[in-house]
């Protein structure tokens, strides 16, 4: 039985015990209430165990998001490279102008 199913079944049992407590009186009622309180906590323990089991399954999904973030990082670097190349082309004209000034006293 999976942790998820166990948590569901114990929650259902807690509810049925609650119905029993409502119709009991006297010492049996108090003992039943004590057991009910304990069953509630065991239900909560089954639920947290199921959540812990589920936590392990997030790993692959989170790895896919990490891979996507890395791909964006690579894209960003490529975009900056294109911008740098265009700047170099523009700066080349500056260099030519400077050389012409020095050579021809323009």
């Amino acid at each position, binding site marked *: 039985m999976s942790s*998820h199913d166990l*948590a*569901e079944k114990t*929650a259902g049992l*807690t*509810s049925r015990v*609650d119905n029993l*407590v409502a119709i009991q009186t006297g010492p049996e009622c108090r003992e039943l*209430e*004590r057991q*009910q*309180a*304990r069953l*509630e*906590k*065991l*239900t*909560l*323990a089954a*639920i*947290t*165990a*199921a*959540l*812990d089991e*589920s*936590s392990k*399954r*997030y790993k*692959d*999904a*989170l*790895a*896919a*998001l990490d*891979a*996507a*973030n890395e*791909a*964006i990082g*690579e*894209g*960003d670097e*490529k*975009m*900056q490279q*294109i*911008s740098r190349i*265009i*700047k170099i*082309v*523009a*700066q080349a*004209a*500056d260099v*030519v*102008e400077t050389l*012409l000034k020095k050579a021809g006293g*323009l």
Partner: protein
Amino acid sequence: MRSPGRYIRLLVWLALGLPLVTACAAIPTGRFDALSAASRSVLDSSSATYSRIEGLQRNYMVFNPAEGRLTPESFKAVVVDDQGRKLDFDLRPRLRFRESVLEALSNYTDVLQAFAKKDYQGDLDAASQNLYASVSDLAARAPDNPAGQKAAGLLAAAVNELGRAALERTRRRALRRAMEAAQPGVEGVVDLIVADNVLIVQAVRTMQNGILRSANGLRPTAPSLDRVQLDERVSRLVDESSEILASLDALSRAVKAIPRAHAEIRESLDDDRPSLAQLQSLIAEAKRLSQFYGSLK
């Protein structure tokens, strides 16, 4: 030797022709904004709801401490099973884990949004303007080429257009690649969060019932101020747990919409057919510049 004007003419046609061939529908930055906002909203709402659940757990333990005399351990979320093993049922670390998962999802959508909108063009425009200034200056020093200034403008525009087209192609390709890689992860995270919310709902209902059961055992039978004060406190906790259950339901519905929205944005990036209006505009511009340049010869 071929004249510089011929090279400039070729460059201009290339610059105008390249967008003609590769012109794309604009990247849907508005959709990336919406996806980021939706993910952030789910994260913020989940954080608030999880904090309320932690508060409910504290109240549950106050109404249901460990059996026997009160000690510092009485209010810890621990139960001993039939084999004597201590079982921890503290929801706090489990909720915080899920919050961090939703934060990772939200951060990813923020990265997409930032990349889709990042201004690389600003540097490109500045570089193109510098190019125009430099080439203009050079041309002005050549008295036998009075059309040099005009050619400088065309060259700068051509470089700008080539650069812009290259930037947008690269941006679109990177977004497609990233979103393809992420889609299974987005779906996986959402499926797990929705399934876990079912368990968390059970926990909230169990704690609500536990508070009511305990309060019924404590409640004075005769009407009194003590009874009213107890009733008042319990009614607040019942309302709180009802609101928590409603929030969890709303969160599950909201988070379920994210994978489909992500997939639709990814599909829209495949639409790189040029729009008719863009084509017509480019053709008109190319004709105008061709006539203008022809008049410079």
